[in-house]
């Protein structure tokens, strides 16, 4: 039996691990919202595609590296499809119109997977199953730790791209003011797909990590995670990459601690209550100051 | 001329970021007159309008309309003090018809819950709609009443914008470049129309680039540069003012650079 502080520490670790999944999804959301002011509801679908295809390719006996690569490619392609047929078509129309067709993509992706692979929860034959280490009495899952590290690394790479390349400068110019970005000669139609590409990659990666960690996938796996990811993004401050990471970890810890102390009845009230309070009291989020681009709405 | 000016601007200032857009500006608009506000691009003319109509809060100073201090009155309340304005980039509601856009101008008079819930478009006769249609007729636009404004030509939109502001029955009307983009015939019609407004007791403040237009229309001119007043007087006086000549002629090439900041 562990002492109370040890249990708390263990729960904190558990929360960070769970939060790393939320963090990746939150980064995906924050990219399209921060740069394009577009709440991309197809993200849960892309997350699911990442997870489902990890299962499908692993089942067919491909090596893990190839599986991950293929799942990421599919996720990115699915995201670019959304850009092509929803966002691009509707630039300049009512700001919540693209949301409709991105939602259409969520329904489409989920139902296509349902038709071909059914609704059962599938068990992923993950090579990382049950790999854990015990450090100072704390049980830490290796793949989850790797997922956390990967999330932070990806966020670092992303910020380097944003602040170190011409594409990044273009992105930030669009985020600041799309009209003047166009006047300044930023190729919006070349840059916008990049946003979707990154957002798709992050989401699919989260799906892959999810599949390998939790060793289970199903067609609706994206919804719950995405809702938490949105909350994480808001708490961190929309448009802020590091805010999304911290927000994701925060939501993970908050969720685990409230389950552990109050039971699962209280989780949603706690998480969404926190979201609501932050939106009303401090809509720019906890890290709004370092935002990628100013919120234009 | 009455002792109480229609608009009294007393030592106001406004900055955006580090840029002082309006700096220690004071001037008055006499009641019943047609005043022009001129200056090079970026001089802060539209900002003055935005400050007067309450779109931006002041950094310091005060603004009075017909003797009433409105410095701390919110933008939505200032129309009650008899203030209406038009916009440099026409702001019509594209998803409404011309007639409905004009109905919006009556909002301040229709007032109250009863006014809100009184049907505009159910009974064949309706005083608000009749009034709006009559106002459209006056400017020769009766044919466009039921068209969506988004599809209408620029000159027509310009007139609708003006009629809408008039229907608020303001005492003071701020017009931001009313003649921009109009052909000579339309400009002449506009001049006649504006003179008619003064006869109905409306005080006008006009931001305009067309000096010809101002010379004919206005009796009082205020010249701004870099957010401060550099001259004031009749068109004749202002035209011969040294600072004004320098501001206009000496800085020709800078105009482009300022055009986005205005």
């Amino acid at each position, binding site marked *: *039996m*562990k002492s109370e502080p040890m*249990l708390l520490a*263990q*729960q904190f670790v*558990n*929360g960070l*691990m*769970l939060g790393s999944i939320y963090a990746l999804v939150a980064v995906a959301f924050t990219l399209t919202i921060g740069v394009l002011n577009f709440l991309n509801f197809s993200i849960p679908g892309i997350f699911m595609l990442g997870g489902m295809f990890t299962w499908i390719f692993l089942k067919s006996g491909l090596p893990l590296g190839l599986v991950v690569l293929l799942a990421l490619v599919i996720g990115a392609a699915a995201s670019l499809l959304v850009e092509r047929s929803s966002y691009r078509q509707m630039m300049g129309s009512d700001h919540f119109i693209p949301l409709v067709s991105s939602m259409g993509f969520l329904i489409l992706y989920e*139902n296509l997977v*349902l038709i071909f*692979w*059914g*609704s*059962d*929860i*599938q*068990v992923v034959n993950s090579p990382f*199953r*049950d790999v*854990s280490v015990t450090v100072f009495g704390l*049980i830490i*899952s290796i793949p989850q730790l790797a997922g956390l590290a990967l999330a932070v690394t990806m966020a670092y790479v992303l910020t380097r791209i944003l602040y170190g390349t011409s594409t990044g400068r273009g992105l930030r110019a669009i985020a600041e003011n799309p009209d003047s970005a166009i006047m300044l000669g930023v190729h919006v139609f070349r840059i916008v797909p990049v946003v979707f590409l990154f957002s798709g990659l992050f989401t699919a990666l989260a799906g892959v990590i*999810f599949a390998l960690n*939790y*060793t*289970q996938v*199903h*067609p*609706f*796996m994206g*919804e*719950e995670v995405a809702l938490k990811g949105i909350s994480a993004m808001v708490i961190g401050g929309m448009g802020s990459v590091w805010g999304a990471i911290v927000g994701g970890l925060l939501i993970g810890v908050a*969720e*685990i*601690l409230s*389950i*552990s102390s109050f*039971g*699962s*009845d209280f*989780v*949603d009230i706690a998480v969404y209550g926190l979201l609501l309070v932050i939106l009303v009291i401090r809509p720019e989020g906890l890290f709004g100051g370092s935002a990628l681009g100013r919120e234009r709405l | 001329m009455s002792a109480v000016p229609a608009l009294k601007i007393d030592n106001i200032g406004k900055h955006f970021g580090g840029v002082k857009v309006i700096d220690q500006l004071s001037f008055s608009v006499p009641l019943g007159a047609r005043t022009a506000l001129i200056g090079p691009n970026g001089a802060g003319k539209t900002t003055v309008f935005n400050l007067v109509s309450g779109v931006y809060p002041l950094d310091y100073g005060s603004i009075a309309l017909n003797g009433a201090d409105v410095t701390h009155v919110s933008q939505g309340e200032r129309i009650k003090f008899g203030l209406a304005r038009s916009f440099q980039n026409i702001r019509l509601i594209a998803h409404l018809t011309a007639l409905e856009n004009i109905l919006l101008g009556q909002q301040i008079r229709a007032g109250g819950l009863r006014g809100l819930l009184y049907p505009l478009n159910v009974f064949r006769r309706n005083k608000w709609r009749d009034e709006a249609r009559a106002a459209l007729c006056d400017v020769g636009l009766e044919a466009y009443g039921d068209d969506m404004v988004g599809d209408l030509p620029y000159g027509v939109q310009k007139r609708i914008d003006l009629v809408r502001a008039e229907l608020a029955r303001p005492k003071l009307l701020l017009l931001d470049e009313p003649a921009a983009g109009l052909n000579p015939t339309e400009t002449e019609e506009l001049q006649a129309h504006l003179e008619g407004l003064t006869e109905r007791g409306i005080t006008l403040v006009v931001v305009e680039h067309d000096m010809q237009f101002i010379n004919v229309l206005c009796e009082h001119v205020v010249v701004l540069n870099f957010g401060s007043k550099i001259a004031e007087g009749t068109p004749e006086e202002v035209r011969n003012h040294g600072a004004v000549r320098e501001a206009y002629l000496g800085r020709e090439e800078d105009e482009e650079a300022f055009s986005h900041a205005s």
Partner: protein
Amino acid sequence: MKKFTRKLAGSCLFAGALVLAAGSMAPAHAASELLLGYLSASTGPFVSLSRSNSIAVDMAVEEINAKGGINGKKLRVIRFDTSGKPAQAVLGLRKLANDDKVLAIIGPFSSGEAGQVFPAAERLGVVTMPMASSAPKLAAPFAYAFRNTMNEGILFSSLLKTIKQKGLAAKTGTVAYATDDRISKIMGTRVLPGLMKKFGIDVTGEVTFKLRAFDFSAQVSKMNQNPSDLVAVGAPPEAAINLVKEMRRQGHKGRIIAGSTINDPDLPEKMGAAGNGTMIPSAYYAGLDERTKAFDRNFRARAKKAGLERIRSSQFDAQSYSIVLFFANALKTANISGDPARLAEERTAIRDALKAMKDYPALEGAITFNAEGDALKPVYILEMKDGGWTLIDTHQPPKS
């Protein structure tokens, strides 16, 4: 723009006409047929479970018709897809009962659908019989509602009886359940803790989670504070899989027990070695006797042909199969003619025949309906061993 609108309006009109035309098509009601309705969930979240039920229903109908049908008439099933949505299930019920004039209805699938279908079916006076709804007392207030599922209380106490008789380690127990699901919550708050106490098992802890939860680290860390011999799970199979894997990862050695909610023929495969020792009560065991083995063989062949991911027959498949047999039996004993003019009275006769049915020899064993409309049948206690379920004990139903 105008042209587009006109085209659009035209196609809307055509589409509407298509819906209405199909809706008003007179059912092909041949005098030589007896009609049953079937509310299946062949799209939506239950598609995998429901698709295999459909195979079992077809098997039953074909077998009956191959033997010459009932009362000299062929049996025919009319399907309606509910997508697992309660609103669609009610729509389907109304269509099947009023438009197609079926005699009785197989399904709907889930408790969520059944909750809305039962009151509507009661008003229409038609028997409905879900194959998977096991939320306690759901059918009790309704005279026309039957369920071919057993009370979870009976199931779970049979399991505990076996555990005690075999002398397995059972001093302490923890309850783990989902709070946002009807059946899970009832299991977790009433059935599981109540019966464990009754059997002298010390309930030392309780953890809760959400139905769709995938991360159980918090719950297991808490459970590890005070590890117990038994972990009683009130949740669907998915949650149990996740829970057991997380338990093993964090080094919890307890045995999983549950009601029939986690019953799934593929569960041993999905839990892997982590699940060894898991015990459940089941209403159906495919390896029971020649008849169930033959059913399972036949079922697997058809499932494979239909391209399903899951090919082993589950308790829901067996229960769907039996529902058709119950209806066939009731049609025969009540001497139902299928005459549309006598529809209401014949539907009531079917209800009464089902109520009167005693120890019907079904695939699952001898079946009788109790006063609440739920089936009483034998309970098979299954233990998970090396990737499969093994039968370790059988309890006959209490004589009513």
